[in-house]
């Protein structure tokens, strides 16, 4: 094993060296020039032939008084070569690169070469982008965009750029993405780090990257001294395009990439200076931070009015008091829609204004509960949009703070920001990865993806069928938990509600009257919609005086959300959910049931999905249908996908089955 491994390293080194010349600006191969399409998919409009990035350090000398001081500057070079096959990707010829250029232009673009290579009638033509044809436009603050408009680009063109940026900010490395919206034949990122620096790295994403190759290089410090530098080279080949699929969370969680973080610095004759932290240190810093951990312990005198009022409610149980406190904070505080791990100007100021970010609001909640003798803790979270908690222990791993209360041995997670949610539901943004309990003691993580309550929807229909097949009656739709919260978020005013009921009519070919939607603002209660309805017959009376009725009068799913055979990434529903239909239909006078759909029940492995369909006709000329579809977990991996697709298939089949009624 050992020998094989060694051999493979040598092979990689050889390959890497062989490729060096291939990356030389302007030296394109005949094969590249004559390439007609991407072999794995001829419909692809362009491919990245190579994207080669390298980070190295150079010594820069500076005279300060009589002394010469040496410092390292970081040199980032990127060589990118793209082949364009089809006009659909002519936009690749408009290259843009976001750069942070310090206020005093600390960072410099020291090389910017770009050209188009065309190959027509067996002749190779190179068209250089002149310096005055480039744009360096300010986006905002110190962020600039280097824009490279390649010239004379057509189908078959190769475009190529070679950019070097030097920076004294030597601790920050760009995140290297191996994957993008077009396929990449070869991507390489090499990092050569002087022995004084120690970096940590994190490789993430769905696609495998080749094992790294390491070697030692020398950097000349001055005429007498050399410094050793550790070079690591990462490569990936034939990386397919990243295509976003429905029901996918933060795309960044799946893109193949590598990140570096400086962990320590040790210069000769100096002690090692640790720069990065472990989670314990991160936690300690969060705990000691003025606008974060400090707020957990500091005084709350400014909230005396609220505290007194809550304290005076001595007839409440502990749980009721927690609830009262939660809703009191929600009522008092406006959420400014900014997720934050820390308070902005302190909780006192936020309380005075009655407005704050998520940390302000949840810290106020935490302080009140603490003063009311609850066992509380603050939890650092990374929201769904922010992506998973970073691999590297870092203060920047989180962007949200929620509260944990331990009461009678039970743990409650609270977030008082979103008005549409009741106390026992965390907003969907919070249901991501894991949270860290802020403490100066131990490291304790809370899994935020398990034990998520369901979204529950119930459609109850009580109706009668008339002679000519028209169905009329009463509909009640009940939404609970996430189903209710989602509805409250989506339809939060009269204009939206109006659109909703109209859409309900259109989608179901139905006329609604006596429309009422209850409990929109009582978040602890389910939302209850009630309507009376008339649905015209859409199928003709049969020759033999038959009536055919689909019992799902309202709200049935119309198409399978999963129609593709394969899927690359997991399906994320955010939370489990279920849909129940309880339908009572009474038949017209003089008619009787001829045929009913079959009862059925299906389930997914591990009961992650369940479907039951039960239909009965009673003597009193009525039909009862009970159908329940449930998805009991939020996340399905791509290998569970075929089953999930088939499960939906079965569900849609049952939803479309007809009842046959015959005139006696």
């Amino acid at each position, binding site marked *: 094993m050992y020998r094989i491994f060694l051999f493979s390293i040598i092979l990689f080194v050889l390959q890497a060296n062989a490729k060096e010349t291939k990356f030389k600006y302007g030296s394109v191969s005949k094969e590249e020039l004559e390439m007609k399409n991407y072999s794995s998919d001829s419909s692809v409009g362009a491919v990245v032939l190579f994207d080669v990035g390298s980070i190295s350090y150079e010594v820069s000398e500076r005279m300060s008084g009589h002394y010469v001081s040496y410092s390292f500057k970081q040199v980032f070079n990127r060589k990118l070569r793209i082949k364009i096959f089809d006009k659909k990707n002519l936009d690749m010829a408009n290259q843009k690169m976001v750069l942070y250029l310090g206020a005093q232009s600390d960072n410099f673009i020291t090389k910017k070469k770009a050209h188009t290579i065309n190959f027509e009638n067996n002749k190779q033509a190179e068209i250089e982008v002149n310096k005055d044809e480039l744009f360096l436009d300010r986006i905002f603050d110190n962020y600039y965009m280097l824009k490279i408009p390649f010239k004379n*680009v057509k189908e078959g063109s190769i475009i190529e750029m070679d950019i070097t940026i030097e920076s004294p900010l030597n601790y920050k490395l760009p995140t290297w993405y191996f994957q993008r919206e077009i396929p990449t034949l070869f991507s390489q990122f090499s990092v050569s780090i002087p022995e004084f620096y120690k970096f940590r790295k994190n490789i993430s994403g769905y696609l495998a990257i080749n094992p790294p190759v390491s070697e030692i290089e020398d950097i000349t410090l001055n005429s007498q001294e050399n410094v050793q530098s550790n070079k690591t080279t990462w490569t990936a080949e034939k990386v397919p395009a990243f295509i976003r699929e429905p029901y996918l969370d933060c795309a960044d969680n799946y893109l193949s990439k590598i990140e570096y973080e400086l962990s320590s610095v040790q210069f000769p004759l100096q002690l090692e200076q640790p720069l990065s932290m472990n989670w314990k240190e991160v936690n300690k810093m969060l705990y000691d931070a003025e606008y974060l951990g400090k707020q957990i312990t500091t005084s709350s005198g400014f909230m005396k009015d609220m505290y007194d009022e809550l304290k005076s409610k001595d007839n409440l149980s502990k749980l009721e008091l927690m609830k009262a406190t939660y809703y009191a904070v929600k009522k008092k505080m406006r959420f400014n829609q900014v997720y934050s791990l820390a308070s902005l100007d302190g909780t006192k100021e936020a309380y005075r204004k009655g407005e704050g970010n998520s940390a302000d609001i949840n810290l106020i909640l935490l302080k009140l509960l603490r003063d009311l003798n609850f066992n509380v803790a603050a939890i650092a979270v990374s929201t769904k949009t922010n992506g998973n908690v970073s691999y590297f222990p870092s203060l920047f791993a989180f962007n949200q703070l929620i509260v944990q209360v331990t009461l009678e041995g039970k743990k409650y997670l609270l977030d008082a920001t979103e008005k549409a949610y009741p106390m026992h539901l965390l907003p969907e943004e919070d249901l991501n990865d894991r949270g860290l309990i802020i403490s100066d003691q131990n490291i304790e993580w809370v899994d935020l993806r398990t034990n998520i309550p369901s979204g529950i929807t119930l459609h109850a229909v009580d109706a009668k069928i008339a002679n000519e097949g028209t169905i009329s009656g009463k509909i009640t739709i009940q939404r609970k938990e996430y189903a209710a919260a989602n509805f409250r978020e989506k339809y939060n005013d009269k204009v939206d509600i109006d659109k909703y009921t109209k859409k309900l009519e259109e989608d179901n070919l139905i006329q609604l009257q006596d429309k009422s939607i209850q409990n929109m603002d009582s978040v602890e209660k389910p939302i209850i919609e009630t309507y009376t309805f008339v649905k015209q017959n859409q199928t003709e009376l049969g020759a033999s005086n038959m009536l055919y009725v689909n019992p799902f009068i309202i709200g049935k799913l119309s198409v399978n959300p999963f129609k593709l055979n394969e899927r690359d990434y997991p399906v994320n529903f955010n939370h489990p959910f279920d849909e129940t239909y309880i339908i009572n239909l009474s038949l017209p006078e003089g008619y009787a049931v001829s045929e009913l759909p079959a009862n059925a029940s299906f389930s997914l492995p591990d009961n992650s999905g369940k479907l039951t369909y039960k239909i009965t006709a009673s003597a009193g000329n009525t039909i009862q249908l009970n159908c329940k579809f449930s998805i009991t977990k939020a996340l399905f991996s791509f290998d569970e996908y075929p089953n999930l697709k088939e499960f939906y298939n079965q569900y849609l089949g049952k939803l479309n089955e007809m009842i046959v009624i015959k005139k006696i």
Partner: protein
Amino acid sequence: MINNKLLAIYATVFFAFCFNNSYADITEPVNAVIENYDTKISIDDKGYKIHVYKKIVLYNDNAIDETRIQLYHSRMDESKLIKAEVRDLSDKLIRKIKSSDLNDYGDFSNFSSDAHVKFYEFSDLTFPCTIETEYEYSAHYLLYFPFWEPVTDFNVLVKDASLQISVEGKTGLRYKELNMPKTVEVNLVNNIKTYTWKLVDFKPLKEEKYIDEMSLPFPKVLLAPSALNYNSYSGKFETWSDLGNWILLLNAQRDNLDEQTTLKVKEIAAKHPDDLSKMKALYEFMQNSTRYLSIQYGIGGFQPFPASYVAEKGYGDCKALSNYMYTLLKIAGIKSYYTLVLAGKNKNIYSDFPASQFNHVILCVPNNGDTLWLENTDQKIPFAYLGDFTDDRDVLVMADKPFLTHTKKYTKQENRDITTATILIHENGDATINLLAKKYALCMRELYFLHNYYTQKEQMMYLSSYMPLKNSQIDSFSLSLIKDRNPYIAISCSINAEKYASRTGSRLFIPLNQLEKIPYMFSSDTIRKYPVFQSKDCEIIDSIKFYIPEGYTVESTPSMFKDSTGFSNYQAGWTINQNEIIYSRNLAINKAILDTTQYQEIRRYYNSLALRDNPMVVLKRN
């Protein structure tokens, strides 16, 4: 006083969040109330200044534009924020924005330009609240004035808005009032002419579906200067041809090409016998050697880069590429005209008010009376096809004597959507479908972009969800664009549709129309305030042949259905022949703005169509 009453209702409804449990008692929704909106413009011969004060009460997050401060500036104009404050309804100050709080952003809509925007968004408001803003803007040129449109959103009430324009110097003001309850008042004091418009207590407009924006009764005043003055380019501006002449002035001597390209063009032209094939070949040459890239600096926003620039770089914006195409045709001896257009689906200019209302350039080729229109920014578009981006609208053609004319309107015969399919029904209800559809001209819609800009995998993803079939799985497909004079997208698909037919006991239920159904669009709206807009002439023709499994007989069939009106015709029917069912459907729609007197008929017609558009055949096992 209606306003105050409304306000009072909304104050209780929205403010007392915890007490209102039902939406049942609300009648007319209002998203925002413009309390005060005063615009003052002063014009002189060099440019103009605008001062705006606005106070608006927002009741929810629907009036999203009102929560953004966007102040534009570039080399030729500047803007300054004077005040921006948010208060709650008790007049308590929630937030105060200073000029320094605005972020200055570069231009994202062009590849590169001198345009910047100072931007701030109140993303974090709690409703209701009042936003008060005041700012100044000054432009150092005369070309256009922003039209005065005090309200452009539905469900917004205006209490008090005014526009005051003072004119000093030789340059005059032209204007046109639209839907204004009160006309202008004009005063002349010390040689300064002042125009004043007022809009008081304007009731909110209710949003309706299928509307033509231009026929909505939003009040507005169209404005334009009587002279043009941008850098050294100046001229009078009373008529469309004045604007055309100014553009001709900007375009002068921009049609030169290097020798090599000139020779190449002549060589291509020489290969083709007639003008039409020369044009086609040169158009393809242009499409194959250029791409759209928008670079706008100063006068470059209105003046094209020279043809030689495009030849050298291989890119340009609509102005540059149109001027380049014009030059290519000129070298080949074919006359064409640079043409200004207001692009966008269903857009048009106010053609009786000469003003700079355009945002795009195309080319008009007279072609001996068979006028052709060339779009030069889409490298994949078929020759002489416009699409709904520039069809059927008034445009300004830069002939020697510029004139206004109308672009091509695609007819019902041209906009056809023809689907033929065979559907083999298996006994378990699954179906094997072979489908061939041809979507002509405007009916190409999103499939045009899908064909031109996406890979096979993405096309598969899109087509799968585009198919309304509940469980369809596309086994194979092909998508092609046929670049005829009347172009079309042909799509052929073989689909495995599980549970296409549902079964109950001994019966199989076969839906005849599972492709594109007519929506139940006017079901809930019994009354209509504004005309119904049918946005294109088109004809949808479906013909589907079903093969039913052996051992089954037809128990029930839908009746044939036919309905016709002055604005649309529908016909659906079927024939049965042993184990074959042939279903055919034909829907024709006229492009029209249908006034409200016809609404009950429109509603009746489309509602009955929607209900009849789901026919089903019932089979019974022998």
